């Protein structure tokens, strides 16, 4: 059995590009700390290369490789691309930010690349082992990046909290993995389905116990209530570009693996776990929105908002169905949109954030922004309206997608709770707009929007508007992305 064929190398090229780039960067930054800007450029180029290779692989139609450890299929590439874009945006935003806080280091970019590599592993994972390693690679790099403002007390604290709780969660995940391994003798996604269905283990307590444990790992990463509590603190303490990266890419990658695993391997037990997801979704949406209402710190507010969005996505997760891919594509579309919204929002926050004291960026600091800087204000308003789910922004389409899936699945009450939550969330999203447009600025906070931030903002606004106005090209695209499920689901059906 040849270990690596040329075809496989091609399929794994994004990973090689990212890791290779990271290694080069590490070496470079070890010898030169003055050329950090150039290192940032280099990282950007690596991203573009990775993105190019992801795009070039779009029609490659991969298969489970390396003992079924990973599969480079469209689903994975979709999320890989999404994460890469988010990461690229983070790089564009970071330069100025890092320089401003005097932490401009090449290793930062290397870690970003490694984290992105972890994401690639995660989204292409076809085996719980890969999921675990992808999660860890992604997370460890992020632990470091969260604490990158080394002298900042909040950053220290955020890194510590994230690290401890992340470790705690991964222990549960591993425990679940071990039980899964013991029970089924395999960790391969497809093999799990075959074993579970074949051996009639769908209702086995051990199997379900393992699912519960594995679920902890995922719901921690996607910040579902009550596994969400790290989110506000970490989002607040982390450097703003990284917060955006976490809210966008990390969440997207985690959801990707979550979706693939649960829509495939654990789907036979859907009846057992869907109720839980419903409850989690409700709790997550509601708590996220309600607590966001009373936040004055912008990053913290967006952290809670991010929790709430996880709740909406969980609505889609709970509505996964065997006979159509509406819910799954809804989740994907939501993540697509959310990534852009959150990337843009945090890009702007990165540009505004000046303070190093513990107060952080408060709503008051946004006062009059829309009047002083109309384009920035417009962009932020678009993101806020999108997050609130107002047409004609993409946020509406995203919500529409998951809620319609829930309705089709008969989860009308869940959908109703969802929209009521949307209404609730309006209050704090609108408040941002209120501050930006309807209040005079008390102090003229300087805005450090260099070209990187602007590029990110323009791209995000365009994406959010375009996805809202004419997702006609995207929606069918997403449906085809989910072609893999068609195959596996049919198999599941036949096994029943």
């Amino acid at each position: 059995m040849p270990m690596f064929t040329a075809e496989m190398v091609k399929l794994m090229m994004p990973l090689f590009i990212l890791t290779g780039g990271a290694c080069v960067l590490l070496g470079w930054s070890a010898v030169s700390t003055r050329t950090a800007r150039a290192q940032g450029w280099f990282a950007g180029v690596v991203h573009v290369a990775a993105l190019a290779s992801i795009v070039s692989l779009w029609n490659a139609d991969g298969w489970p490789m390396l003992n079924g450890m990973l599969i480079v299929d469209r689903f994975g590439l979709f999320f890989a691309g999404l994460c890469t874009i988010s990461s690229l945006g983070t790089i564009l935003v970071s330069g100025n930010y890092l320089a401003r806080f005097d932490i401009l280091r090449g290793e930062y970019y290397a870690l970003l690349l490694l984290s992105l590599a972890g994401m690639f592993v995660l989204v292409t994972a076809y085996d719980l082992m890969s999921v675990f390693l992808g999660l860890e690679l992604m997370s460890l790099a992020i632990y470091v990046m969260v604490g990158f403002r080394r002298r900042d007390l909040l950053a220290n604290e955020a890194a510590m909290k994230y690290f401890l709780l992340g470790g705690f969660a991964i222990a549960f995940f591993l425990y679940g993995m071990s039980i899964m391994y013991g029970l089924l003798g395999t960790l391969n996604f497809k093999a799990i389905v075959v074993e579970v269905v074949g051996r009639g283990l769908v209702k086995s307590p051990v199997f379900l116990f393992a699912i519960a444990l594995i679920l902890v790992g995922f719901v921690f990463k996607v910040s579902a209530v009550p596994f969400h509590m790290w989110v506000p603190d970490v989002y607040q303490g982390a450097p703003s570009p990284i917060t955006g990266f976490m809210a966008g890419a990390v969440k997207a990658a985690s959801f990707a693996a979550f979706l693939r695993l649960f829509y495939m391997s654990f789907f036979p037990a859907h009846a057992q776990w869907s109720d839980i997801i419903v409850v989690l979704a409700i709790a997550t949406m509601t708590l996220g929105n309600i607590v966001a209402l009373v936040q004055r710190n912008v990053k913290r507010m967006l952290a809670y908002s991010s929790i709430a969005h996880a709740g909406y996505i969980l609505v889609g997760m709970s509505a996964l169905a065997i006979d159509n891919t509406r819910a799954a594509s809804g989740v994907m579309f939501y993540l697509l949109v959310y990534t852009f919204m959150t990337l843009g929002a945090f890009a702007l926050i990165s540009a505004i954030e000046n303070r190093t004291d513990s107060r952080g960026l408060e709503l008051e600091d946004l006062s009059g922004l829309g009047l002083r800087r109309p384009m920035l204000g417009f962009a932020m308003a678009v993101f806020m309206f999108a997050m609130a789910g107002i047409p004609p922004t993409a946020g509406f389409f995203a919500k529409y997608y998951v809620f319609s899936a829930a309705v089709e699945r008969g989860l009308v009450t869940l959908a109703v709770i969802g929209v009521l939550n949307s209404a609730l969330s309006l209050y704090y999203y609108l408040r941002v707009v209120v501050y930006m447009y309807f209040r005079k600025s008390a102090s003229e906070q300087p805005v450090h929007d260099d070209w990187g931030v602007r590029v990110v903002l323009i791209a995000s606004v365009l994406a959010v508007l375009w996805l809202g106005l004419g997702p006609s090209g995207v929606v069918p695209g997403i449906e085809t992305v989910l072609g893999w499920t068609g195959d596996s689901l049919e198999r599941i059906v036949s096994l029943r």
Partner: protein
Amino acid sequence: MSNMLWIIPIAPLVGAALNGLLALIYSGREKGPNERLISLIGCAAPIISFVVVVRLFLAMRGMAPDDRIIETTLFTWISAGAVHVDFAYWVDALSMTMLLVVTGIGSLIHVYSTGYMHGDRGFARFFSYLNLFMFAMLTLVMAKNLPLLFVGWEGVGLCSYLLIGFWYKDIANAAAGKKAFIVNRVGDFAFLIGMFILFMVTLHLGDPTLDVPSLRAMAGIHHEAFSKVAVAACLLLFVGACGKSAQIPLYVWLPDAMAGPTPVSALIHAATMVTAGVYMIARLNFLFEMAPAASAVVALVGGITAIFAASIGFAQRDIKKVLAYSTVSQLGYMFLAVGVGAYSAGVFHLVTHAFFKACLFLGAGSVIHGMSGEQDMFKMGQLSKHMKITWLTFLISSFAIAGVPPLAGFFSKDEILWSTFNATVGPEWMPRFLWVIGLATAGMTAFYVFRAVFLTFHGKDNVSKEAKHHLHESPPAMTMPLVVLAAGAVVVGFLGVPAVLGGPNLFHHWLEPVLAGHAGGHGMGVGAAGMSAVTVAAEAGGHGSSSMELILMVVSVVVALAGILFARVLYVQMPGAAAAFTSRMGGFYTLVFNKYYVDELYERAIVRPGYAIADKIMYRLIDAGIIEGVVNGLGITARLVGATLRLVQSGVVRTYAFFMLIGFLYLVYELVK
């Protein structure tokens, strides 16, 4: 011929538009537009109408009595679903009578106004309103269907509102105008409902219509369907009439309406608009005949209003107020007439009243004009020396209203009394009771009118020096109409000389096809069942014995003369007696002087509680309190919950882990169970 019909209302409308435009154009300038031009436009409009009306009248006289109808449909006004309303004018004998009165007296008053309003800054505006009123009133009169009648009905109300508040700088005037409008609206509300009932009946019969002739025809055919709702419909329509014609309990606006310029009081609040209610009931007589109970109510309300208003008239100091209450009282008379089924008598009184009351008002206006705006009779006296024409015409009209033969008032009033006496309306006691009331009212009317005459033109001279300085007879533009009207007050009565006095009662016959004819049109079979006893007894006037009629006639004349004499005694011969009498009556006088505190009652019982409920309960409690409380409460609750939940976020890592473990246990519990 019928094509000319449209000129009648349109001429004043054009006049109104032209004058209104002028008024607006000149509104920002120092000087108003040329008064001559305004007068020309303003007076030409009703006069053109009048001329057309006369021509049509002559034409109509040439027709067979049953064919005396002229009509024209201008365009479809509303056509929606089952509702089809044409903008159609339709004139029969009754409306022709009204047209003559309205355009005739209206023209006179327009002429009078050119003198009265001379120099007023709002001259153009005034004529615009007055012309607009003419348009509305003519529309009311000529309307073929009830909605169009309602257009006129509301239109005259609007003009009344505008004209009462014409001198808007005094907020009291404006308030009076508003009060008039709103009280009228209360009546209109009932009118609308009444109209709806009729519409429903016709709709049910498969031919939804509100056209008066069609209603009349259908009422003849579908007697049963109509009589089922007739009482309700008639009562509601009557409430509408009460509003417009200032009957109890909706009369309160009329005295206040005297705030308007005096020609307005004469035209709108005496001669024409306020009689619209009477006209409307006469127009719908076929309906009221089906509803004896409603008719009884009409008669009773009319009678009570008559005496009630007359009693208030006793104690007024303001000459216009006296006339206003007199108008209310006389309108009560008319309602009494139509209530007992004496439609032609009612309409006849309407016509005669239009003359003498218009004359009285214009006379009063002339007095006020001469007195530089003074209206308190107790500050007048001996004016007969200064204002001969005014005095004479006023006196003639006073005799007319008092019912002194052979002036107009005598014939019309007597016909009403006689019809009442003979009526079979309501319970057995009612006709006689109403007759007594009518008679008493006649006496009282004589008294208070002559009280006014004596206080104003005779008696003690209380005119202030300053006023006396300016005191003068009014210009010809004002006196000429007075003379014409006074002449009318003398003459028109003879149109309705009853048979018992050997008269042909031309008036009665003229109206016969309209007021008694509908049964005739559709055969006696229906008529026998359809025509109530009311009609049979009253319309035919001659059913009672003629000797009885003569006796009663004498009685009423005696009563009227007694009233006049009493007034003379009190206010001319023994000037102190009135004061003594007043103080003797004490509380009662105060009660009467304050119009039985009806306004105050409305204020306390309806206006203030209504306002308080709207303000305190609806706005502050329900709206701002409960609904807003719930709405904001939801928001506050969400925030409170949020503020509570955020406390869980203690910042302590172990707590976070603890919640994760709890969450894990929940997952296990739910999954494994």
